[in-house]
């Protein structure tokens, strides 16, 4: 599964990060790596909330990934 990170930046500079396609604690490690890299670019981040995704959100991700994997519908004869 492709690993994706979606980061939304608000007008006050607050960010919301969504890690898709990571297993186990990989996404937390990736988030830490991203925070370290951001500090090198002069952006210090302070987590205000971290939550596990709901089952509905996870299912929506899986559906999206399936569509991306097979973008052309099979032709019927």
């Amino acid at each position: 599964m492709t690993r994706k990170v979606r980061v939304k930046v608000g007008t006050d500079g607050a960010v919301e990060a969504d890690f898709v396609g990571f297993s186990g604690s990989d996404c937390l490690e990736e988030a830490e790596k991203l925070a370290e890299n951001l500090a090198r670019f002069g952006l210090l981040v302070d987590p205000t909330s971290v939550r596990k995704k709901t089952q509905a959100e996870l299912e929506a991700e899986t559906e999206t990934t399936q569509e991306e994997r097979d973008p052309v519908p099979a032709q019927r004869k």
Partner: protein
Amino acid sequence: MSVMSRYRTKIRLSPTREVDGKVDPTWQLMREAVEATAQELGGRVADRVLDAYNKSVVCDFAVITPGFPRGVGVRVDSAGAVTFIYDHYDQSGRGYRRTAADISEGIIQNYTALAVAKALAEMNYSVEVDEAREGPTGARAVVVRGSL
């Protein structure tokens, strides 16, 4: 495990603009953020702003726009902390507080988005940047997407 996380951010530039004759990446990023904000608002980049009495105040970067010709300045102190300077006083009592705040928020948002895009690119992600409008006010959000 997949998680959604929210972060507060703070911009902290390198205390020195140049190292060994090369512009520090954080200062380069601030220049890019200031230029992007000026372009979005139909303005230009300068190195000083004016107060309500037309007195010039020198700063590290400034954005001058048609809506706020006095400009909003960016000052970086010896520790790299960023301060926005502007004079929002208006004799008519209307004031320019909101206009000036829009410019400084634009700089913060653009800096943050550029930093995220560059950090993800360094982690070998393919990066795309989009804009979105949110909520009843249609506030601007910048969305940075990275895929591995």
